[in-house]
């Protein structure tokens, strides 16, 4: 039986170990350069062994580990910046996820036992959580419009901007109402703009889906708002009204959360598939 020379085993073992470590790099980078990096690593190993034996390989490993630690971090950081370019566009998923989560939490305010013209105690605190929720959702809508600027139609883009503006006016209204109850009109006006723009966007999205979610989701969310805002929801008891009101608001929060999560998932998939990364 023919035995392998010892240096071949050390070099082959090192190359295998290095190939395994490449898992630390982003998938698209690994696919493009992984084989070349292993080949270069092996070449240097061979050289190092010829010059200094096993000590040469060990020294090369020390340099390689340092190189790996620095460049893995660099490549991972870059992946986040590949797509898209604007800050809001990049963070749209995160903004909508946080906004959705805050909104779902704030929906608990609907369990206030009596009527909902004035909120008090913990219910008021929960109701005020709609302010950060809709600030985040508003900014998230701007981010969506920028993120999908090239795939959305002009009308979709502007409807999303309008949805975002409505959400931000609602935030002003919520804060103003907390200071002076008669200012609820601001909140209502913002809500009208938000819901109409979202409804129209939902209709366009139903026809030409662009977001990576169920095509009817934006329209369903807008439908929930319409039911709540125009008081269609009236059942026999306050308790069941509260429960339904909570379910609608909670559902809308979950809707934004789902859109945010889907966008984040799409971003990860995009950067791991180089064919989907737009040329810079």
């Amino acid at each position, binding site marked *: 039986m023919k035995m392998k020379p010892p240096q071949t085993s050390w070099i082959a073992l090192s190359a295998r170990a290095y190939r395994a470590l490449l898992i630390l790099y982003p998938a698209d980078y690994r696919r493009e*350069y992984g084989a*070349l*990096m292993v*080949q*270069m690593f092996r070449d240097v190993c061979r050289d190092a062994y010829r010059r200094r034996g096993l000590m040469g390989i060990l020294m090369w490993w020390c340099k390689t580990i340092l*190189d790996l630690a620095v*460049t*893995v971090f*660099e490549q991972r950081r870059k992946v986040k910046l590949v797509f898209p370019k604007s800050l809001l566009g990049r963070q749209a998923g995160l903004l909508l996820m946080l906004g959705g989560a805050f909104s779902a939490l704030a929906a608990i305010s609907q369990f206030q036992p009596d009527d909902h013209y004035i909120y008090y105690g913990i219910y008021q605190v929960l109701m005020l959580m709609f302010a950060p929720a809709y600030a985040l959702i508003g900014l998230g809508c701007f981010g969506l419009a920028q993120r999908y600027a090239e795939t959305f139609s002009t009308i979709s883009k502007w409807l999303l901007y309008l949805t975002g503006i409505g959400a931000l006016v609602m935030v002003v209204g919520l804060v103003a109402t907390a200071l002076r109850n008669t200012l609820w009109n601001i909140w209502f006006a913002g809500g009208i703009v938000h819901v109409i723009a979202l409804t129209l966007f939902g209709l366009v999205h139903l026809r030409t889906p662009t977001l990576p979610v169920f095509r009817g989701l934006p329209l369903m969310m807008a439908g929930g708002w319409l039911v709540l805002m125009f008081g269609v929801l009236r059942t026999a008891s306050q308790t069941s009204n509260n429960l339904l009101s909570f379910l609608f608001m909670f559902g809308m929060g979950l809707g934004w959360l789902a859109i945010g999560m889907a966008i984040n998932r799409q971003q990860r998939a995009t950067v791991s598939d180089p064919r989907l990364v737009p040329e*810079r």
Partner: protein
Amino acid sequence: MSDTTMHPHDLLPLTPAVFHILLALADGEKHGYSIMQEVARITDGTIQMGPGTLYGTVKRMLEARLIEETDERPDPDMDDERRRYYRLTQFGERVAQAETARLARLLNAAKAKRLVEGAT
């Protein structure tokens, strides 16, 4: 980034890794390992680029159109066909010249302030 929209000075100063690779490729196409060897040679062995640094920089330089892949192989019979060869683009050459001129101006300034050993 492309040579049609960018001026060489827009990219200055270059990182040491980018400039070393431009220098290594200044006299013809090379594959990754020979770039690494050339960088070690021109820096008297003080810089040995790891695979991560080299290919991370190569990726950035390809995106910036400083270098390009080439199908030409200096000696196809002796070579592993899986290797990829890179060469400077015209834009890359202009950027290398601009960086060299910038460094030369710095060197002259350092000489004037007697910071360079052996300079008169």
